[in-house]
């Protein structure tokens, strides 16, 4: 493929991102009618854009650049189409938004001792669980040694992140503690019983 054609495809991809985001904006911002076509069309254009960027930017790099383009285009559209001044009279077009929203449940940190316990659970205890799971993943994940390490290095932060959110949400501190300690113990056992 010639460089000129690659650049032409990249510009087409940029246009596809702009139109795709605009279709989604039309579907979600004001249109109160069924709008499956607009939503499907918008997403389809965004996927096509990622593919069109490939020859110029490379496969994985093209997807990353295309995702960035979508994020920036949508953010710009939000800023441009946002309601920045107070609406007056009939001129104010309605902005469609889902009514209502949940209030958070009461969390575990209702008193100072419980707050300290929650922080301890969210930080050292969750970190221990995350690291233990990472070591277990590094030893038990199938594949090449590099794949094992990278799976563990990316998997452990996810376990830690989940544990952090959960410990800050669950009111039953004993349950959280017991499950995290049990999880860490199971991971430790998996390490002891590792394949040789």
């Amino acid at each position: 493929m010639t460089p000129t054609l690659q650049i032409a495809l990249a510009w087409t991809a940029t246009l596809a991102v702009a139109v795709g985001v605009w279709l989604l904006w039309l579907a979600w911002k004001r249109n109160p009618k069924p709008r499956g076509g607009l939503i499907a069309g918008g997403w389809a254009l965004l996927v096509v854009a990622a593919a069109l960027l490939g020859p110029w930017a490379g496969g994985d790099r093209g997807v990353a650049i295309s995702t960035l383009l979508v994020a920036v285009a949508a953010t710009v559209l939000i800023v441009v189409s946002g309601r920045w001044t107070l609406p007056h009279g009939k001129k104010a077009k309605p902005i469609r938004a889902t009514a209502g929203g949940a209030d958070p449940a009461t969390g575990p940190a209702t008193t100072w001792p419980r707050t300290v316990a929650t922080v301890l659970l969210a930080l050292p205890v969750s970190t221990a669980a995350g690291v233990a799971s990472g070591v277990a993943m590094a030893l038990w994940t199938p594949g090449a040694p590099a794949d094992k390490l990278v799976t563990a290095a990316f998997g452990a932060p996810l376990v830690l992140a989940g544990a952090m959110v959960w410990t800050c949400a669950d009111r039953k501190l004993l349950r959280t503690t017991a499950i995290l300690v049990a999880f860490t113990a199971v991971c430790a056992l998996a390490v002891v019983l590792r394949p040789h």
Partner: protein
Amino acid sequence: MDAATPPETAEKTEPVNRPSIWPKVPPAFVRTVLSGHSGLGLVAAALIYIVCLSGTVAVFLNELKLWEEPAAPTQTVASPQAVQAFAEAITKAHPKAGVVYMGLPTPDMPRLHAFVGEQVFVADAQGRIAGEASAPWAHFLEHLHIYLHLPETIGLIVVGLVGAALTGLIVSGFLAHPKIFRDAFAFRWAGAKRLSQADLHNRLSVWGAPFHLVVAWTGAYIGLATLLLFAVAGVTTKGDIAKVTAPIYGEVPRADPTPAPFPDLVATLAWFDGKPDLKPTLISLTALGTRGQLVEVNALMPKRLIYAERYTFDVQGRMTRKLGLSDDGLGKQVFASSYPLHFGSFGGLPVKIAYGLLGAALCVVTSSGVTIWLTRRRDRGRPAERLEKAWAAIVWGSTATLALSAALQLALKVPPVWTFWAPLAVLVAAAVAVKDARFWIVSLRIATSAILAAVVVVQAVKFGGLAFGGVSLGVNLTLLALAAVIAPWRKPLARAAA
């Protein structure tokens, strides 16, 4: 940090009986996850904000280094002979350096330079050492983002924990807001405060989510990898970390201090001639002049997300080994792609600008998340006034003291670590003690704006004409634009109470 749309202020124009493709999420689950989202956000908000702020600025680290040291020589291409001469000169000047990293000129760092410990030396076109260009403020910024100025291993782990918390917040934010996509474009700044902040928080979160998740997750991975490696090495290799990382970084050769000829870097670089898909950008030189010496070259692959492919060369400049970051299994490729994805270094200035904008959005999301929580408390008659003031001081005080640290480093060479953290601590303490949150927001926005303009003046006075050309001009104009945007020009809207 509840970002839910307040029920009493949402506009009810939703059509009735419209089928939804989204699965129903039990309200109790949403409320519980929202509780975790709020709690974790409050615990980690200040550190997340400072890491995000410094990371957003650090996207432009190379540009800032050029701006901070504009007088150092630049070159778009370095001849192999100059590289050879520079390597020999650096080794002669620093015989005990151990490892020297030589950066070849690239579009965003057009210098032939060498890292020796914490020092950076720059070469002229002939490869002679032209001087030091260590850019201490840029170095400070880098350490703020990566270590929070804590001892390095501890700092890396703390920042990794911050990344994990941010990852948890992003995922839980989506779980806690099942309708977030349907409202993906509804932005009503001119509404009740909680509504406007909720819209700001949710809208920037939705569209920036892929970027936010990638930087948070890779940040957590980079930070916590050290801890994990210690643990894995403790279990499997009696603490030998090099042995654990060998599948990714390759085997470390045994040290052999027996004298040996200096490697032929001209021949090494000649190996890349006629290979347009490999652009050498970094040469790593270990134990030069000994039989245990190691010459490794990182070559950028312009159409790949990976930071580089790495090649090892012998003393005559013959390629002996390819590490395989580009094609040896998915794990290595994911590993090598994570750094460009985190630092935004895979697409030149346009990608950096996008990272800057979305990084700023992440700072706003962090700030608005806490503000929503504070506003809900106020709306319910339980205002947390001290916390409101402290948060205002952290958000706008950190921008002001970041700019202050740059101004004082450039003007008087005051160590920026002190001029960032000490005034920030004083500001938070003062804010808690006196006045109200609005006073601190307005005052600190004015201060940030004024100090940013002062930074430009200081740089222009210090470097004269160099401040008005090339990268320096771009950075200075950006700083002035930021100063204009941050200044509180508009009178605050008279908002209805939620």
